């Protein structure tokens, strides 16, 4: 290494420094317009709606009917929305949305708000389910399993549609009534039946996704909340919690065990096995629409029917 090379390196650093300034300035002038974008999107008057997760997307699409074009970002049942890494296609989708629906409550907060702020759009409204329900980070984010929360979100989505497209306000009101009264009829009926028949029944669960459902149905969740939260968030559950749950299963303190089949850790698999050995009926729920093509109500009804038959088997009525 020669001494003459030394000052050269210093010059390179200065050159690099100049390059940062120069090229960043150049790049700042580089934002382009999409080729042919002027002729795009003016023909149809549909509201462009994007939902971060497909359970809210399915509801938004049905509420919007023919006046809305809906796209969901997370649609694959194998994708975990907690740790989703957004792609450029998602950024493009959100950039062009007129209404963007995100769950919030820490559920999609690692990627969705970032894509919104990095792609400013003055004609876009953002609807955050957590804000609608007055919940914050750390609260239970799985509110699509709560009947009351689902109805509040329906109100909020319809209100946004009417604000964006006031001319069709009465159409959206009709869509809402039709959705609540006929599309959700079986879902409403199952909620009422299970609540009437099995309220107070002690159940166990794998994670906090089941808590809003149990609250909604009046079931008595015996599993420690710390365990439900640990599994949902992907942290290690404590051994005290695990021992307590094993005891509850062995002593048949719980009538039914409900687990999330998309998030089944070895701990959960062991609990499922133990419950089956002890003759406790086991039933499953999923994080997002499964199969992906189902509507919100088809998916919920299927899960509620499974839960109802498990409860019937366990209690004998």
């Amino acid at each position, binding site marked *: *290494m020669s001494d003459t*090379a*030394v*000052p*050269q*390196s*210093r*010059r*390179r*650093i*200065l*050159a*690099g*420094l100049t*390059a*940062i*300034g120069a*090229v*960043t300035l150049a*790049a700042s002038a*580089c*934002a*382009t*317009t*999409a*080729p042919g*974008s002027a002729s795009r999107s003016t023909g149809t008057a549909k509201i462009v709606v994007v939902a971060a997760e497909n359970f809210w997307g399915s509801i938004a699409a049905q509420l919007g009917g023919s006046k809305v074009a809906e796209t969901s970002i997370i649609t694959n049942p194998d994708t975990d929305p*907690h*740790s*989703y*890494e*957004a*792609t*450029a*296609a*998602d*950024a*493009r989708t959100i*950039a062009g949305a007129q209404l963007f629906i995100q769950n919030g409550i*820490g*559920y*999609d*907060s*690692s*990627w969705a*708000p*970032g*894509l919104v*702020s*990095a*792609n*400013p759009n003055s004609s876009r409204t953002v609807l955050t389910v957590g804000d609608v329900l007055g919940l914050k*980070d*750390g609260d239970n*984010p799985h509110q699509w399993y709560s009947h009351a929360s689902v109805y509040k979100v329906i109100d909020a989505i319809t209100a946004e549609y009417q604000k964006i497209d006031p001319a069709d306000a009465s159409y959206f009101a009709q869509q809402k009534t039709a959705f609540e009264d006929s599309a959700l009829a079986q879902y409403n009926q199952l909620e009422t039946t299970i609540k009437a028949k099995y309220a107070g029944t002690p159940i166990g669960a794998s994670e906090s996704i089941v808590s809003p459902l149990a609250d909604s149905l009046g079931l008595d969740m015996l599993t420690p909340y710390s365990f439900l*939260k640990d599994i*949902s*968030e*992907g*942290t290690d559950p404590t051994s005290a919690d695990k021992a307590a749950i094993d005891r509850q299963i062995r002593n048949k303190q719980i009538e039914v065990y409900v687990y999330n089949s998309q998030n089944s850790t070895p701990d959960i698999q062991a609990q499922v096995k133990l419950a089956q050995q002890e003759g406790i009926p086991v039933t499953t729920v999923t994080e997002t629409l499964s199969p992906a093509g189902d509507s919100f109500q088809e998916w919920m009804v299927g899960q509620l029917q499974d839960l109802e038959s498990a409860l019937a088997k366990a209690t004998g009525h």
Partner: protein
Amino acid sequence: MNPGFTWNIITDVQWMWSLPSMVNAFRAGLAVAILAGVIGWFMVLRRQSFAGHSIAVTGFPGAAAAVYLGLSATVGYFGFCIGSALVIALLARGSGTGVGERAHSSALIAVVQAFALALGAVFLDLYGGFLSSTSAFLFGNFLGITDEDVLTLVAVAVVVLLAMAVIGRRLLFASVDPAVAAARGVPVRALSVLYLVLLGATVAEVSKFTGSLLVFALLVMPAATAQVITARPGLSLLYTVVIGVLVTWFGLAWAYFGNQATGFTITSLAFACYVLAYAAKSVRRTLRQGRPGRLEVA
């Protein structure tokens, strides 16, 4: 949806840069590549890759702690990265280049790193939020960069690079031959501390976009590749920056058109560059010596 890749490059780029996310990703990617390249070049030269990796890892508990305390993650990144850089710099014995000294400092760095990871887990648990934040801290997000983020990044880059321009020559001397440098009156120890602090600041700023893992790839891979290509310091520093910028930009474009995660595309390209450079060097050496398989002491 994004239109796919066509061979009409101009239309492709127009499409790509009509998305504000991508424009800011390219701007930030440029600044990140230059900053990480210059700092990483010295890191590889000084054989402090392990220290760099540990400092990068401490960004994770830093961000977690800040979020738990209700502060912005940036405060946590800077606090913990610069803090761990200071701990490593001040507790390491001597210049950290002798055999015994190096063993001592690598053990010290390992201790800092292990404790940092444990702290990260504790803060996340205390916060009780979703582990989604963990993946953001570890893998970052090149697509959520705002104009303000780019301005802050450029400001930090300018400050760090100015400092490097001032100390660069003496730091190079102290890195290559600390004993002779010290004998000639170069403040070897002070330079070492200052360099690690600059490394900490770089890692903290860059981690916001790249996460704690990709930042290390950008620090080490372009520099390692350039130092395989040439032994001349000035030239290899220039190659480092050029490789870093190209790898980042092409990685972003690949992520855009292939709908891949940026961490994967950028790291893969950087790795490919290293493998190519290494293979080319081996082939050249074999051809020159006519004796395949002979080891050369680097």
